[in-house]
Every structure is written in C-alpha cells, then in structure tokens.
C-alpha cells in the first residue's frame, strides 16, 4: 500500500469554524451521534466520520460526501452529544461551505457568504427595475386607473429579465452540479455499487423523499423544524406552480391579469403565500427559541429565510393593497417584491436556496451509487459485523 499521507487543510477547518462549526474540536469520537441519528444508515453512518474529517481538515472528503446532504439537521445528535460538539451544526457548516466552494463563478460564492456584499447584491435588481420604470415613465408617478401591475412594470420588460437571469442561473447550476457529482463519484467514502437503480429511478425516489419529507419526519429532537420546512416547501412549490401556469397562460392562452380571487390559480397562489409566511414564522421562532436543537443560526440561514419571508409578505401585501385601491403603495410594494424575487432567483446557486439542488443531487447520487438507507427498525435489522478489536 502506498503511503497515504493525510493532507490537512487548516484554512478549511477555520472556514468551517466560522460557518457554524465552532464546536467541532470538542468531539471525542464516541459515535453517540451516529447511533441516535434516525437518518444515518448502518454502513459508515454519519455524522461521526464527518466530525473527525472536519477536525483533520479533510476538505476533499467532506465536499464530496453525499451524507453531508442526507442530514436534515434535526438536532438529535447535538442533544445527545456528551461533549457539546454539536455535530448537527458542524454538518450545517459543511453545507454552508459547499455553497461557496461549488459556486460558479467563484466570486458569486464569496459575494453571498458575507453581509458586506449585501448592498451590492441588492443594488443590481433595484437599479435594473428603476431603469425599467424610468424607461416606461412610471418613476415619478404611478399609472392611473385600475391597479394592474403590468401597467407599472410591463411584462415586456419583466419577463425577458427573469427569463435571461433564469437561463444564466441554470447554466451556473449545471456547472456546480457537474463538479459536485464528479467529486462524489471519485471520493465516495462508501464506495460505489452501481447497477441497482438507474439515474432516472434514483431521481424519482429522491423526488419522492423530498416531496413527502419522509426522512425529515423521522427527526425526534425538533419536529417543529419539520413542520416549518414542510409549510415553506409546499408554499414555495405552490407559488412556483402558479408562476409557471400564469407565464404559459399569458403567452400561450392570452390570459387576462390580474386573476379574479375565485380563480383556482389565484386560490392556489393565496394558499401558497399563507403557507410560505406561516412556515417562515415557524422557522424564525424555531431559530430564536430552540437553539438547543436547531443550533445557532448564521448568515446563510438568516439571509435565505429573510428573503423568503419578505417575498411572501410583500407578495401578499401587494395583492391586499391592490384590492384596497391605494395605487402608489400597491405599485411600490410590488416593486420591492420583484427586487426580492430577483434576489432569490439570480443568486440561487450561491445562497442557502441552493440546498435544494445539492440535497436533491446528493440523494439521487446516494441512491444511484447504491448507498444504504437508514435501518427502518433497529431490532429487525440485525447486521452482525465482525469486530476488529
């Protein structure tokens, strides 16, 4: 066997510490975490191995480890940890690190990692939409008559902006995901056992896991997190569906906006908005009051949650003010809403929003590579492993 020298990346350890893994050095490798975790499998379970890799600065292993994304940060491990090493938070820190690490182009990763770039990031959509307003002559005074948002910022301008931004984002995501997949495939600590499932089958199973939240549901220590996430997820999905339907409705079927309140699509939109806001409220409450299980919250967490929360609130508010007939407030609320939507979409691959894609891809990969799933029941699953000691 060749000499396997461990290359320790000290900068990586320091980064993880700053991103929320400050407790990682307290770990003394008792493996309580791996056992109390309801999501980790019997074969090389997490997060014990991730803890020692993080202590040793084994960046390559961690950024390629699908298990980092199979963790939903329930906090069961942190609650039972005898050392206060908070494995759940360390796993979260590794995920935060991955957002920056896989960012394409790199400077966008840096831009989303610290609040000091926040004004610059917001300046982009603000200036862009102000220019549109100036161009169509709505900057000084809002349009008169019935409040129709398309009169304020016409679709002719909004849609091309969002379509091109989405295309760029999709390209960037593809770059990051390709690299992530390749890394997982080369460094997978579990070894690869292909052949059981195709990528398509794996994708369907991964989608099922995410849509049903069936893994997330297994969290013991903090199931409020699960409820909050479920509400945000389905609220967001509903709104995403509404946007897609309206987009095609508009261009393919010549739909008239705004939709009536009794329109099924509008009803879906309103339910989605309420779910999103409710979910965000639960999440904020959870982060502020359940630190023992949720752990500390960091910039990545608050930025993403804050953006979603504001999108939900400004969206609903714009609708309500529009119905009340106060044109200036309605139009400018809509403006703010658009700025935040732009922020969410344009910076998706670099913010915590990207957990959606990394987690999905990691789960697809785990299934494709034949990694084991958590044992349904410890008693029925009896693996006899020959002890090395």
């Amino acid at each position, binding site marked *: 066997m060749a000499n396997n020298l461990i290359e320790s990346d000290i900068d990586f350890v320091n980064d993880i510490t700053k991103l929320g893994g400050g407790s990682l050095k307290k770990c003394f490798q*008792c493996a309580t975490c791996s*056992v*109390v975790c309801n999501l980790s499998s019997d*074969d090389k379970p997490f997060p014990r191995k991730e803890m020692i890799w993080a202590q040793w600065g084994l960046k390559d292993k961690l950024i390629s480890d699908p298990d980092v994304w199979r963790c939903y940060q329930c906090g069961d491990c942190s609650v039972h940890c005898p050392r206060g090493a908070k494995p759940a938070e360390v796993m979260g820190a590794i995920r935060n690190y991955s957002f920056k690490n896989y960012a394409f182009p790199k400077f966008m990763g840096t831009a989303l990692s610290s609040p000091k770039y926040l004004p610059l990031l917001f300046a982009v959509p603000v200036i862009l939409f102000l220019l549109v307003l100036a161009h169509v002559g709505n900057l000084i005074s809002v349009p008169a008559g019935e409040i129709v948002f398309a009169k304020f910022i016409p679709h002719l301008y909004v849609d091309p902006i969002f379509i091109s931004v989405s295309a760029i984002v999709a390209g960037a995501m593809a770059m990051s995901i390709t690299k992530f997949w390749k890394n997982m495939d080369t460094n997978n600590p579990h070894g690869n056992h292909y052949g059981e499932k195709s990528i398509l089958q794996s994708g369907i199973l991964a989608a099922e896991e995410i849509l049903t939240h069936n893994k997330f549901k297994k969290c013991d220590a903090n199931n409020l997190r699960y409820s909050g996430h479920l509400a945000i997820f389905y609220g967001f999905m509903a709104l995403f569906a509404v946007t897609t339907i309206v987009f095609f409705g508009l261009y393919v079927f010549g739909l008239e906006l705004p939709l009536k309140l009794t329109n099924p699509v509008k009803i879906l939109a309103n339910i989605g908005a309420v779910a999103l806001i409710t979910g965000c409220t639960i999440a904020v409450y959870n982060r502020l009051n359940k630190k023992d299980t949720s752990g500390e919250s960091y910039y990545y967490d608050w930025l993403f949650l804050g953006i979603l929360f504001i999108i939900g609130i400004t969206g609903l508010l714009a609708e309500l003010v529009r119905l009340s007939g106060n044109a200036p407030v309605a139009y400018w609320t809509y403006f703010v809403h658009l700025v935040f939507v732009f922020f969410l979409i344009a910076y998706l691959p670099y913010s915590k929003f990207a957990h959606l894609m990394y987690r999905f891809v990691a789960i697809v990969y785990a299934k494709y590579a034949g990694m084991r799933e958590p044992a349904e029941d410890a008693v029925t699953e*009896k693996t006899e492993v020959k002890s090395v*000691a």
Partner: protein
Amino acid sequence: MTNDNKSVCVIGGGISGMTTAIEAAEVGYEVYLIEKSPSLGGRVVQMNQYFPKLCPPQCGVEINYKRIRVNPKIRYFTLAEVEKISGTPGNFDVTIRLNPRYVNDKCTACNKCAEVCPVERSSDYNYAMDKTKAVYLAHEMAFPMKYVIDDKVCLKEQCAKCLAACKYDAIELSMKPKTLNINVGSVVLATGWSSYDAAKIDNLKYGIYKNVVRNVEMERLAAPNGPTKGKILRPSDKKEIKSIAFVQCAGSRDENHLAYCSSICCLASMKQATYVRSQYPDADIYIFYIDIRATGRFEDFYTKVQADNKISFIKGKVAKITEDADTKSLTVVAEDILSGQKIYKTVDMVVLATGMVPNGIKSQMPADIVYDEFGFIVPDLQSPGIYTAGCAKKPADVASCIQDATGAALKAIQIFV
C-alpha cells in the same frame, strides 16, 4: 497547641473512614468515627471482588473491623449524622445526631425478630433487588453485629411481634434520637460516593427494561451474599445468561450527566466480565467503550482480559437499547468506529458502567466546606484542621482510597505535634 484537644473526628465509616480512624488511633490518638448507616463498611462490603486481584473484600474489611473492635481509642457511632461542625484546629465542636436503632446491645443477631416481622422493605444493601424485613441486619458481616429497625416502615407498638419474639429484651421500640456533642482537634471527611442514577440517561432505558442493570447491581448479582446467592441471573426471568454487553461511560464523560471520568468503571467492567466468564464459560461478552482507561499496572489486567476470545472489545459508545417484548432480550446499538459500521448485538443482559457521584452533591456537610461543581470536596480549599479522604475528594479504586485515607490520618494528627 499543646493544651488543645488531640482527638480526631472521622465522618464516614467506609473503607476510607475506617482506615483513617484506625491509622490515627493506632499511633495513639483518640478517634470518633461517625457513620450514618446502621453498619460500618460502606460501599466495599457491597462488592463481590476487588480488581485487579479478584479477591473478595470480606477479609480486608474483617481485619479492619477487628482493629476497630480491639482499639479502645476508637469510639464509633452508627446511625449517626453530623449536624454541625464549628471551631478551629485543636478545638472543633461537632454536634452529632444519633438516630434510634430500636435494638439495644443485648442483640445476639439470632434473627428471631425478623422471622416474626410482617413488614418488608426493599434492601438498600442489594440495591432494591430483594427485600428485608423492617427489622433486619444490614448485611451478614454487619458491624456492629446488631439488628436495626427501619422506622419508616415499622408498625411499632401496633405490631410489636418482635418484642415478644426476642428473648434477650433487645428490642426497644421507644428509643429516641439523641444528640452528642464532642470536641475534637481535627476533622476528616470521608463521606464517600453513590452510583449515578442511570434512569436519567434516557436512551439507555435503565429502570424501564428489567435486564438493564448498573455495575453496582452486577456486583450484588455476582456476590455470594447477594440476592441470587452469587449466581448471575438476569433480573426479568432469573434465567442463566448466554450473552451480556457492558456499556462503558454510561453517563460518564458526558456534559448532560457526569462530565468527568470516574476512572474505575473500565476496570470494574473488565472484572465483571471475568465473573461472567467463570460462571458461563460459553457466554459471549461484549464491552463497548470510548477509550479503555486502565492506568498504571491495571494495564496488565486489561491485557489479560483482552486476550480472552470470548470477550470482545468494541470501540463505540452504546447510544440505543431496544427490548424484545416477548423474550426481554436487549439489542444494543453502537457504531464500531474501527470498521465504520453500526453494530447490533442482541444480548440477555446489559450492564451500565455508571460512574461515582460524591455524596456531597446531595447532602453537603453542615460546615464551611468547599465543594467543586460536581460535589467533590476540594482538599486544598478547606479550613485548617479539616481534611478529606477517599472518594469524597475524587473517584478512586479501593487501594488508592486506603493510601489516601492513611495520608489523611497523618494530616489530621500532625497538627497536634
């Protein structure tokens, strides 16, 4: 200080307290030995064997009892609790409450009283694994060899069957508590330890699954004078065992329970593995650990146990235990760190290696004593003339306690010269 009082008050009659008392008395000083339970002996008399020599504690304890019995310089008080300590070196006033035994010196330990006694109480000597009568002998080697009545359960005059049964007039149901005031020159605290309350460790199911026991209970199960007469049988159905798992650091080195290492549990579990091995040569024995702490010459014992092919050491802490509802067998789950695999072992019985909790955590001495955050007495911070011996100060094995107690005796008397 030549005119000062040159006697020593030793609080706690376990192995440390007895040793301090004997050492101080045998060089000529007056000693008061205060024990709150009905018998001297403390925790060691609940042990089956000492590690690493695997000899029973009885012989050493018996020698100490004899040294106390024959030495007129030692005055010992059982069922005695300290109510107040005040003063300065050479002049401490100690107030002691003597709780009633309800049995006087005429007792011959003939057991006639217990035979007629209708009331039962759970045995603290056997960690509630069996029962004694309300009038009982602390244990078969009790010192003093006198019965005692548990006044929390005794029906007293309403029943009084023992009174009639005792032909020596040894029962005195009207006995009242007394107060004793003594003046001494120095004080030694040897207040000892208790085993950690494993019910607080929610994932290990002690107190919920019958076949999960603590190491201290395992000592009683293996001891010839224990509830099973020394045969290790599992509590749920009193059957012989085919497999057993020892869970090290059960609550120890754990911020949520005892943040410190008690230093003795690794050796205790290895010792108990040898009990199982000698009774059941074919039993599978698993010891789940984080780190084995066998310091100094104890390493030899570790090496010897490790060489046994029926005893497996698995590096990984047990963090989950499940019970089969029908068979009451237990499955322990750990991650075997060396292979990176979760390991499930189904066993007949689980022993939790719980740590030592200083008795100072629940009942602090009525004096100006400095305790640390865990309830251990901090020796260096005590007022002059007050010293500490044994596990009241830190977790330790018996041999270390005896050495420490001898040192405490020296400290307690050297202020007189």
